[in-house]
């Protein structure tokens, strides 16, 4: 009798336990959400969309391994339209409405800075993608930046260009500085200006030009008239293309030309400019030279190039995508090592660790920048017309700096 009375109770108890387990299991295995804004339209969308492809490759890779902390990884992201004013609202929504577990940045200095106040208020670790010296203004100890600019980003950015120039004989004596009027380019040229002053060079031209100027022929003519030994430029894709074309059309006679020109890293632009690029010394972050063949990078690029087909983005993905993959590698490795989402512990772990990534070993300095600069200075060589495939092979962008990954010597002056 007692047995008969106990049975329903036992059944209810078992059902209750099953219910608890049934509800508890989904709660524990709820996907881990990483939130970010990204430039998917607007002037920087080419880079933003390429970055997103790389990030999704990382997400697929990590989920194949079981995710992070036993949870599958999901992305929650919004298009910031390359508009800095949209960024704070996006991160507010990510944190307060979408309740994401981790955040990473959009692409580029102009899109990273506006997110900083809200990220800092929440005390979150913030992995950022290609921001130049953003943390100089904020001094946030949970900020980490994946672009290998170096611990003094504004100066390290152009250090290689000047080291190369000063190693030539006779040493260059004068320089022209030109910046497109936006945050990154201005910062890059500010560093170049300091180097020029430090080295006692005569600055014969130092101007800015409006972002998105349709034609820069007059600007290049004024630079040519200044007759500088070196021409250092900070510019964005449209301006970079115009300046390279104008330099060829007007016959610029500088001994070194380039520096911080965004766009010359993209295959479509490289193909169009073709031999006009020959001799230009410009920054880059990854090129298919044997000295930069880090473990995993070729496998990653193979996946990227397959994923990029038909998407209207850079087909090779040398410039940004490996770093977009790597900044999530760093975050993922740190979360796994710490074993929780404790932001303080994650930040402490990132500070003390050297990470193995597809862009090589990554160690951060106290300010969240790379502990040692690896901003490449590459020189275009032997570029042929109308051949995009050549840029996916070694020999077209020779690494001149830093010496640890050098693949050749400079051809100087840049145009005979």
């Amino acid at each position, binding site marked *: 009798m007692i047995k008969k009375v106990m049975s329903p109770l036992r059944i209810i108890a078992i059902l209750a336990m099953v219910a608890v387990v049934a509800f508890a299991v989904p709660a524990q295995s709820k996907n881990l959400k990483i939130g970010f804004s990204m430039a998917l339209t607007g002037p920087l*969308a080419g880079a933003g969309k390429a970055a997103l492809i790389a990030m999704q490759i990382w997400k697929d890779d990590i989920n194949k391994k079981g995710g992070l902390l036993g949870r599958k990884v999901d992305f929650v992201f919004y298009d910031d339209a390359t508009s800095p004013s949209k960024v704070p609202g996006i991160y507010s929504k990510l944190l307060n409405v979408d309740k994401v577990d981790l955040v990473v940045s959009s692409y580029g200095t102009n899109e990273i800075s506006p997110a900083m106040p809200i990220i800092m208020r929440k005390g979150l670790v913030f992995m950022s993608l290609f921001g130049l010296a953003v943390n100089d203004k904020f001094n946030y100890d949970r900020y980490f930046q994946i672009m290998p600019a170096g611990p003094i980003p504004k100066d390290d950015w152009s250090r290689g260009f000047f080291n190369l120039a000063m190693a030539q004989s006779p040493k260059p004596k004068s320089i022209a500085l030109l910046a497109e009027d936006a945050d990154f380019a201005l910062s890059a040229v500010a560093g170049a200006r300091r180097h020029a002053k430090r080295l006692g060079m005569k600055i014969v031209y130092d101007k800015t030009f409006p972002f*998105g100027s349709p*034609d820069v022929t007059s600007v290049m003519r004024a630079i040519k008239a200044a007759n500088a030994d070196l021409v250092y430029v900070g510019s964005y894709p449209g301006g970079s293309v115009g300046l390279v074309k104008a330099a060829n059309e007007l016959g610029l006679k500088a001994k070194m030309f380039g520096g911080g020109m965004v766009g010359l890293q993209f295959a479509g632009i490289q193909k169009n400019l073709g031999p006009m690029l020959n001799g230009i010394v410009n920054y880059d972050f990854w090129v298919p030279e044997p000295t930069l063949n880090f473990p995993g990078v070729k496998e990653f690029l193979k996946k990227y190039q397959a994923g990029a087909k038909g998407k209207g983005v850079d087909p090779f993905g040398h410039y940004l995508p490996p770093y977009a993959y790597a900044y999530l590698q760093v975050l993922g490795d740190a979360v796994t090592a710490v074993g929780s989402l404790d932001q303080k512990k994650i930040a402490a772990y990132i500070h003390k660790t050297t990470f193995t990534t597809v862009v090589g070993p990554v160690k951060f300095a106290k300010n969240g920048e790379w502990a040692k600069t690896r901003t490449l200075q590459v020189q275009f060589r032997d570029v042929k017309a109308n051949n995009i495939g050549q840029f996916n092979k070694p020999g077209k962008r020779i690494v001149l700096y830093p010496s640890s990954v050098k693949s050749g010597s400079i051809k100087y002056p840049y145009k005979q």
Partner: protein
Amino acid sequence: MITLELFLNAVVAGLMLGGFYAAVALGLSITFGQLDIVNIAHPTFVILGSFVAYILNQNFGIDPVLIGVVFMPVFYLIGTTLYRVYYVSFERTGQESLSGLAFFFGLMFIIEVVLILTFGVDYRLVNAAYIGKTLHIGFLDMPFRMLVPAIAATIMTGAVVLYMTKTFMGKAIMAVSQDRLALQLMGADPIKVKRIALGIAIATASLAGALLIIIQPVEPSVGRLYIGRIFAIVVLGGMGSISGTFVAAILIGVVESFIATFYGPSWAPAVGFGILLLTLAIRPQGIFGRA
């Protein structure tokens, strides 16, 4: 230091740049200046023209200027269709001022998104034998990349001026903005006149887009950079005056070139808009506008 060589080169570079500005502003001069339609999407149609030139240039190696000319009838049809929608939805009901503006804003975003979904967001460029080469006359340097667009733009503007001044329909287009009722009394249909006018305006975007992609790389949203500048040119030239638009474009081009060469390129837009404000203060109707 100002030398004769720099001075003359700055003038020539300004003329070429201004010629290109005229091509982009020409369509807006018709829609905004003559039809009183605030077609804020005009630069986006220019970008559409750039992408048409890009596709045919990259796939068949056809010269971009030729593509721009050949596709003008297609853009004309787009323009006339657009006017039908605009008229039925807004103008007929008297809602064209605010709703019409919103319509063209929306259109701008739709075209941009369609371009992004179709072509992606990478920068696109064209190839032509003359790009990268320069015509040297004495110490004057004229890159063909700028010279060809300037010549093409001048021919297009001249053709439109001729059409407007020498044909019945052209005169009707100029009249429709001034006195619609009088035009009806003369036996012309203002709706048809406006439809043709918007067709012509959008047709100019086909060539302007081809010229743009010769000069600079293009991605779907790059047209936004031109909105302020071309509206300023149309207002400066005088609402409704195509010749005025051309002169204003040349003026802005030359001023920008001078500022970029001798002072600081960053000042160029500010000085350009400064001239606009100064002109409007002295002559509110613009350089060639009627009081």
